[in-house]
């Protein structure tokens, strides 16, 4: 079973992720901020990380930078799912190294699952 860590501070959205992705057959771990993400990565190496950008404590960009700086986590594919969508945000994320960038409001969960499957199956 593929392991996915989802960093999402909105509890409704994380709930939706959990329901949909679990149903789709993924092992899903949810964290609500960057700090938590970095902590869980120390004991749990996922196949993919789904990362929000605007989060409390440690935001998505900071967390992503830390992940990319750590050789252990570097190979893990990251999909950024944010409601930010400006070019600067996209470029900044791409510079740090991500597999995909999706705007949540424009995304259906089915499309998300397709993208994930393409990356890790």
């Amino acid at each position, binding site marked *: 079973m593929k392991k996915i860590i989802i960093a999402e501070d*909105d509890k*409704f*959205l994380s709930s*939706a992720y959990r*329901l*949909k992705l679990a*149903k789709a057959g993924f092992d899903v771990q949810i964290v609500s901020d960057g700090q938590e993400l970095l902590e869980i990565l120390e004991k749990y190496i996922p196949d993919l990380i789904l990362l929000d950008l*605007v989060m409390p404590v440690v935001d998505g960009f900071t967390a992503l930078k830390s992940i990319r700086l750590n050789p252990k986590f570097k190979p893990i594919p990251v999909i950024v799912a*944010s*409601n*930010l*969508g*400006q*070019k*600067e945000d*996209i470029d900044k994320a791409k510079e740090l190294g991500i597999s995909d960038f999706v*705007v*949540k*409001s*424009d*995304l*259906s*969960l*089915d499309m998300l699952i397709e993208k994930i499957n393409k990356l890790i199956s």
Partner: protein
Amino acid sequence: MKISNKISLNFIIVFTILLIITGGIVYYFTIAIFRGEIFNNLYYSGRNLTSHVKTYIEDQKKNGEILAGASIYRDFLNESISTGTESKVIKNKIDDRLERTLSTDSNITEVFIINKNGKVIASTDKQQVGKDRTSDPYFINGQKEVYLKDVYLSSITNKINFTISVPIKNEVTNNLLGISVIRYKLDTLNAIFKDFGESYKTKEAFLINKDFYFLTPSLFKGDSVILNEKVNTENSTRCFDPKEVDYVTKNGYSGLEKTIGVSQLIESKDYRGIDVIATHNYIPETDWCLITKIDRSEFLKEPNLIASIFIYVFLASLLILIIVSYLFSQKITKPIKNLSIGAKIIGDGNLDYKIKNDSKDEIGQLSQEFNKMTDSIKQSRLEIDFKVKEQTKEIVSKAKEIESKQKTLLNILKDVEKSKNDLEKFKMAVDNASDHIIITDPEGIILFANQAAQDITGFNKKDMIGKKVGDKHLWGGKMPVSFYQELWKTIKFDKKVFIGEINNHRKNGEKYIAMANISPVLDSKNNVVYFVGIERDITHEKEIDRMKTEFISLASHQLRTPLSAIRWFGEMLLEGDAGVLTKDQKEYITNISLSNSRMIDLVNSLLNISRIESGQIIINPKPTDLGALVKDVLSEIRNETKIKKQKIIIDIDTSLPKIDIDPKLIYEVYKNLLTNANKYTKVGGKISISLLKKDKEIISQISDNGFGIPNKDKVHIFERFFRADNISKLETEGTGLGLYLAKAIIESSAGKIWFKSRENVGTTFSFTLPLIGVKANKKGATLSS
């Protein structure tokens, strides 16, 4: 002086000189010829007369000798000597003989005999017999030979005589018996000189004795001169010159002139004191001189006559010459005169005058050329007149123009005072403008700065003037070097206006953002004279703008999150993740999802608007087939058009090239326009779309026969959030942002967009895109879909 007079004068002068020379020569030679002739005349007549005289004297001498030789003479003398008495018989015979002798010649005035003792023993003049003649020359000289006693005045007869005395000798002893003397009067001698003058009136010849006395009469003074008057002339002197006398005595006259170097033709004065030409002949036998002469005036009469004839001929010739030369010069100068008159007439302005001269000579040619010239002058005069008229018109119009300009100028001058005030006002306006205004020279050295420049930058105006803009010690120098290079290139070399934001810093170090508008001021030769820089401190606006953008961005994010949750849960419900839904439940959830989608669209649009308004549309051009793009859009909205049973007419030029545009953005434009056409056209309506190339553009047209746009709304149609009255009543959906976005995209892509519409008839939207495409810009933001 007129040409004709000149010609005449020349003729006359030349002719006169020639005639004078010829006349002089002719006269000289004529005189020479006449002189020769008169000389011959005088000379030979002189010689003739001389020989006459000689012959006459010789004849008389012979007569005397014959008489003396008569035997009766000897007898008579012998008898008287021997007897001492005279026989009457012999005496009678002697007397008889003497009388006879006297009668033989009327010139003989007396014949007498003298005995050897000098006593007249017989004479035709009885009173003389017995007189003693011993002292008489004819007795003294007559004893030896025949003796001519010179002409003398006889004391006896008281007449002028000459005598010839002949000795009478004994035949045997030859002793002197006596002397026979014959006395002659001069009649015969004088007769020799008579009528000598021939046709000449003043020609005369006369004899003089060695005492220079006349022996024969003077033509002019008659007989009285004889032995009474002397001839003291050059002739008389020369004639008795001993040399000449000697020579002539010995040799006669031949060669006289050559031998003793004297001319016998003498021109001098005669005894009267009158000029004469004369010659002379010495007669040795009688010791006389024969002078022949003629008055010089008579000698010159003929040459002078010839000369006067010549002068008359000359004067006549001159007269003829004058007339001829006048006529000739008239003939020559007449054409010239005609030409001259013609030239004057033409010169006075009569260009129609033609000079008449058909001759083939130079003057004829000149006249013809002159006529030609007149023609061309006439022609060019006409042209000039025409041009002058034209130009006069022009000048008049120019003058009017100038007049009006002058009035304007006067008005301007009147306004000078006012203008001074205006200038002051202008200066005040510039100085008090809230924008920072500086003027620099072409090198960027600051010449002027207004109060606002000082206020905004914090630098004193005095600190600025003379420094270069962009100096680090002023407000500039905060931008990359490449930025300033680009700025200078634009304004100085491209000579265009630069507009852009510049980060500057004030004197106190505080940063600020300026919106700069820098314009080159060009002179008539397109050289930069000044730069005018106007900068506005937009730091505050930028901050507000940034905050607005941030707010919208954040707000959008915060809105999107719940919308995402609604979307996803809706999807899950509809997919039956929470169990199978009833028909009603499904319908309600669907409505929620659709409303949610509209909300998402609205949020996306708001986000785009905020980005467009901050000038941040990212254009990412790729070679794009617009036809394919249009078809993609049509397939996306196919459901909607099918639902409304609308007819779609596609007219796409298949030869259109791919152009460099941002496909995502242009897709949005087509989608907005086609969606509008679909929405605002009735069921069963018609939508057409055409793409065609025109010039350097591709024109896209989307037409419908829908509701149209009310006239009052047309001006607002591209405004954001605007929805026309007629459709907002019909259709509650719609953000009022579609056309606003379309216009922003097309204009960012170097195109234009416009429309035509009539309410309830239809609407056509058109936009252009350049064939060369659009350049990428890196800054800004992509649109949210």
